[in-house]
């Protein structure tokens, strides 16, 4: 402990590293809690800071991460490391240029982003995606807390559109090196046959790295809701809507709308609903807004899956709803609070 202190103090003393001060500050703050005390009113405060808050998202993602390493091998780890390093460099450069502290939000983005990629994604595509996501998803808006879109989704969206061949047809079958173009949703769309519920639960189907093992995702998501790090309102309304809408839709148009349980357990729905739609910064903050956000996400997801050229709609629906989140809040506040004249 004293050694670490000594080392960090040495880093501060080296003049050549003056430019890297935000980075050293970040290391310092991560190693040691603050020395600052309250100024009174309140005299004592909660023990949780954003570091702990964000690190719990990572803890919740660990089961899904470990499952993906188990299914797809160590290449998953390589992709995660590339995502962290490249994204981290962008974050640090921005902090240095802006002379601001480095924020914790990146720790989450850096892990969520690789988990929504196909396991065979080339490392350079991962790098391009994470740079785009951090740059245009977050830093352009002014950093954590001010971004409109979920940075991981912005990156994913960009490479999906920029490199469609890599991103939509290269799905690795778990435990093998075989490549298939058919995820369960794609199979359903072309042939109408469905993967077994058990396979979907455990993760023995093709899909993005982190989103196939549903048990791990549900476990992590419930953990986040229990610890109050994420709010239950969005995932409940999102998944609930997909289920109800698919149940009704499957009756009316059985050819194009898949049955409810299959809808819930396929694609990125659980991962998206539990880890991406719940991002507090890019979703509405009002309670009614959260419900509406989840319901609209659910409707959009089913519609895109069933009636568009794409097989999966979770990413698009969350990004579209991210853009609408401020409007939803505005409407909810307008309905709830009457203007006052002075």
């Amino acid at each position: 402990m004293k050694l670490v202190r000594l080392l960090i103090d040495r880093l501060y003393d080296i003049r050549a590293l003056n430019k890297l001060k935000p980075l050293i500050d970040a290391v310092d703050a991560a190693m040691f809690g603050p020395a600052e005390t309250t100024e009174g009113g309140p005299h004592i405060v909660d023990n949780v800071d954003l570091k702990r808050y964000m690190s719990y998202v990572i803890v919740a993602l660990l089961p899904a991460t470990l499952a993906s390493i188990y299914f797809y091998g160590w290449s998953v780890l390589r992709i995660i490391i590339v995502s962290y390093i490249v994204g981290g460099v962008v974050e640090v450069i921005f902090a240095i240029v802006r002379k601001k502290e480095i924020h914790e939000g990146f720790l989450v983005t850096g892990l969520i982003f690789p988990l929504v990629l196909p396991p065979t994604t080339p490392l350079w595509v991962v790098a391009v995606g994470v740079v785009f996501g951090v740059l245009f998803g977050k830093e352009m808006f002014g950093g954590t807390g001010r971004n409109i879109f979920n940075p991981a989704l912005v990156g994913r969206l960009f490479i999906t559109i920029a490199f469609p061949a890599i991103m939509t047809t290269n799905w690795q079958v778990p435990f093998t090196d075989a490549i298939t173009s058919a995820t369960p949703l794609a199979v359903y769309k072309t042939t109408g046959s469905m993967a077994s519920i058990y396979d979907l639960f455990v993760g023995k189907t093709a899909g993005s790295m982190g989103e196939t093992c549903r048990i791990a995702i549900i476990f992590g998501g419930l953990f986040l809701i229990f610890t109050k790090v994420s709010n239950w309102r969005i995932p409940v309304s999102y998944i609930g809507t997909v289920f109800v809408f698919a149940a009704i839709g499957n009756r009316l148009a059985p050819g194009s709308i898949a049955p409810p349980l299959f809808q819930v357990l396929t694609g990125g729905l659980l991962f998206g609903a539990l880890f991406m739609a719940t991002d507090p910064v890019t979703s509405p903050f009002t309670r009614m807004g959260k419900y509406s956000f989840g319901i609209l996400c659910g409707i959009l997801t089913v519609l895109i899956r069933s009636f568009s050229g794409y097989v999966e709609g979770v990413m698009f629906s969350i990004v579209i709803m991210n853009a609408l989140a401020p409007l939803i809040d505005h409407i909810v506040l307008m309905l709830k609070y009457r203007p006052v004249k002075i």
Partner: protein
Amino acid sequence: MSMQKKLSGIIPKYKRFPRGYEFKNFEGQPEENLTQTGTPARVTIPLRQGFGNEVAPIVKSGQKVAAGQIIGRDDESVSNPVHSSVNGKVVEIEKIDYLGRETGAVVIESDGTGDWQMLEGHSSKWEDLSAEKIGELIYLSGAGSAGTAGIPTRFNSSVIVPEEVENVIIQGVGSQVHNLSLNVLLRGEGLSHFIEGLKILKKMMAGAQFHLALNRSQKSLIKSVSQLLPTDDSINFFTVPGKYPVERDEVLTPLLLEAGFPYGYCTANVGVIVLDIQAVLHVYEAVVEGKPLIERTIALCGPGFMEKPHVKARIGSSLEHVIKGEVNADKNLRFVLNSSLTGESLSDSSLPIDRTFTTIIALLEENEREFLFFVRPGFRKDSYSRTCLSILFRKNSRMFQKSCGTNIHGERRPCIFCTFCEEVCPVGIIPHLLFHYVEKDVIDETLLKYKIFNCVECNLCSYVCPSKIPVAQRIKEGKAKLLDEGCKCPVPSVVLKGVEKYKSVK
């Protein structure tokens, strides 16, 4: 049947309070013993204590005074008399900087004796006293200054008169981090004195409905109170969860009465008087025993005290005199009055104690950096989120009591809209929304629209914020700026009483 009812007593009605936050299992709770601090050699009596305006001194320097003698009184303005708490001689009348404002104070040197002068006309048969006389005894004893609006009597002790009181709420909720133990106040004769005190108040404010609210966790107290309360429904008995800040007047009143509340006004303005248990005991002592308010029971709490007794101290004793011998001198401490969330910081130990003291909390000044702070499991760390392991040890665990120090526990970060502040806000406003407007210097009707004046300044939003934003402080600033620009909170659609009088209380 009626026999059975008498045995089981009155069953309290439970009132759910979905908001707020319960502080559980914090270290430094006071022990259930009571010690006397003895007669101090010198007291400084502030001329404004509790509710009311500052009174003018009616004694001169050099004059001999007796304990219990009125030394400051002003019958014209809304105020309550102030007494000497010791027998002795006035040495000085000075101005002191007291709890954030300049106040006149009378310094008295004590002769060391401990007796006091009784109030004239008190009677152990209080039933025979007229309501008028009871009011006079309450006023002359100084007990009238209790609560945020005083106890109404004929003597300008509150902003309204007894006939205008519609509801009287007596609360022993104790939802703070550290609370005075009611078992200490009500042990032995205390409980029956309290019930008598209630009846005395009821006689004086005959037209009012009485309500008693206790913390639902105080099971044995609830049981004994329910057996002693009159069975004729003249007192509504409630239990509430100990979720901070449910004990605040502006929160408890609408909760118990199931009515709207004109936030920004005092409870007396809607005919409601809120008192705590100690105030009722002061009323009993004044009317039945003839004892003026010259002593307070104060709980010494927090990790900075070695023993944590309740002490009975003469008003005007210096802080030093009250806490001496109990302080852990090795540690860097911060003394806080009554509440770790909203209390004044007591930085000068020569300052006197007054009638408003209930707890003195000694918090640790944690200005040392903790190695790998954010990854430590947190067996002793409190959090609104459930990310610390302290949630596993909530039921009075001696081993893992939560620490309470003044460290801010993290770096300041931008708001991420986690809505913790909204979830805990006791009045249901959206603190982070108001914060953003004030931060951007939008000081206009938008703030009124989002009900900034509903804020009761409980500071809970600042407590729970994981981004360590001083949300409550900004909201307070926003209010102050609005008032500067001449904005007032929108007048509610209720008949307000004594508003002009209340405004005159400085």
